[in-house]
C-alpha cells in the first residue's frame, strides 16, 4: 500500500522461489524415473489388459488415448486464454481432460519402466527413454506451479506447451512406430 514497487519485488522473488522449487522437484522426478529405469532389471512382462495381443499393443492404444486428450488440452488451453472462442466450462474441460490423459498414461509409464527400462540401443528408443522421464518431470513441475500465485504470465503456457510437445514426441516414438511397424492392431 505504501510502496507498490516493493510489494511487487517481494511477490516476484516469492514466485521465483516457487518456480525454483517446482522445477527442482520436477527434475528430481525425471532423474529418479530415469535412474529406476536404468537400474531395475527389465522384467518383460507387466499386468496387461485382456483382449489385446501384447503389452505393447495395449500401451500403444493407451498412449493414443492420452495423445487425444492432450489435443483436447491444447484446444481448451487456448480457450482459457481467450485465443479461441470457447464455452465457459473450458477450464473444467482442461482440468478433466488432463486428468484422464494422465490416468491412461500412468500404466504405460509403469510398463515402460518396469518391463523395458531405460534403454539406449537405438536412436528412437534413446529419445523415447529420455523424453518419457522428462515428461513426468515437467508434469510434476506444472502441477506444482499451478499452486503458485503471481507467476509471470508466460510461464504456465510455456510449461503446458512443453508438456504437450513432449507427449507428442513420446507418442511419435512409440505408438506411431508400433502402428507403422505392426499395423493398426489390437
Amino acid at each position: 500500500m505504501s510502496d507498490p514497487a516493493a510489494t511487487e519485488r517481494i511477490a516476484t522473488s516469492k514466485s521465483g522461489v516457487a518456480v525454483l522449487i517446482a522445477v527442482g522437484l520436477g527434475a528430481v522426478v525425471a532423474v529418479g524415473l530415469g535412474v529406476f529405469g536404468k537400474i531395475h532389471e527389465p522384467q518383460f512382462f507387466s499386468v496387461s489388459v485382456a483382449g489385446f495381443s501384447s503389452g505393447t499393443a495395449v500401451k500403444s492404444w493407451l498412449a493414443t488415448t492420452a495423445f487425444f486428450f492432450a489435443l483436447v488440452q491444447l484446444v481448451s488451453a487456448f480457450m482459457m486464454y481467450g485465443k479461441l472462442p470457447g464455452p465457459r466450462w473450458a477450464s473444467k474441460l482442461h482440468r478433466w481432460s488432463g486428468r484422464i490423459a494422465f490416468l491412461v498414461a500412468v500404466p504405460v509409464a509403469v510398463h515402460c519402466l518396469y518391463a523395458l527400462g531405460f534403454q539406449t540401443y537405438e536412436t528412437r528408443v534413446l529419445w523415447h527413454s529420455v523424453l518419457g522421464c522428462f515428461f513426468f518431470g515437467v508434469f510434476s513441475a506444472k502441477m506444482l506451479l499451478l499452486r503458485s500465485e503471481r507467476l509471470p504470465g508466460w510461464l504456465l503456457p510455456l510449461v503446458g506447451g512443453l508438456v504437450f510437445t513432449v507427449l507428442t514426441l513420446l507418442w511419435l516414438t512409440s505408438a506411431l512406430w508400433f502402428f507403422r511397424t505392426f499395423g493398426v492392431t489390437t
Partner: protein
Amino acid sequence: MKIRGPILTLGAVAVLGVAILLVNISKEESPPPPGKPAAQTTTAVAPTTAPAPPPAPATPPPPAFPAKADYVGKIPTANGTITLEITVDGDKAIAYACDGNTVESWLRGSAVNGTVSLANKDKTSRLEGRLQGSAIVGTLSIGEKNWDFNAPIAQPPAGLYVYENAGVRNSWIVDSDGGVTGVQRREDGSTTPAPKLTTDGIADIDGIEVRAIRVEGDSNV
C-alpha cells in the same frame, strides 16, 4: 487459499503408478513354473504348458552376439504354440517360426549390436529382437498378428533343420529338450505338419530316408 486440485491430481497419479508397480512386483515374487515343457511332438496343435515369462536375467545385456548361436523360444497363442528359432552367424541372422501344423514363416536379416531385425521375403512377417542376457527377446509378427517372445540360447542338436527336394520343403526346429516342431510346404504353397525328424537329423519323407541340413545364419535357404 492455495489451489489443491493439482496436488490431488499429482497424488492420484503417484498412487496409481505405485499401485500398478506393486501388483507387478507381487506377481514377480510368485515365481512362474520353470519353462520345461515336455518334449514336443511334430504335431504341436495341442498347446503344451506355456513357458511362463522369463525370470530376470542375472547379467546386463552384452551388446554383441556370439559368432554363432542358436536361440529357441515358444510362444503360446490362442491357436496353439508357435516355436521360434533364430540362428545368428556373424552379422546375419535367419529365423524360422512355425506351429508344427500349417503356419510357418522364414525370416532373414541383420544381427548387429545385439539386435536382430528380420523380415520375410514379401515383408508380411517381421521379427525385432535384442539380446537380453543370453536370450533374445522381442516381437514377432506374422501377417496381422504379433507376439512378444523370449528365446533362450540353445546348444546343438537344438537348432534349425531343413530338407528341400522337388519343390517340397520340410523345416524343423529342434528345441533344447529335444522336441521337434516342423512344417512341410509343398510346391503349391500348401502346408502340413512335417514328417518326423529324429534327433540325429534323419527324416522319412515319402518312404525315403533323408538327412536334414542344419541351417546356419548365413545359409541360403
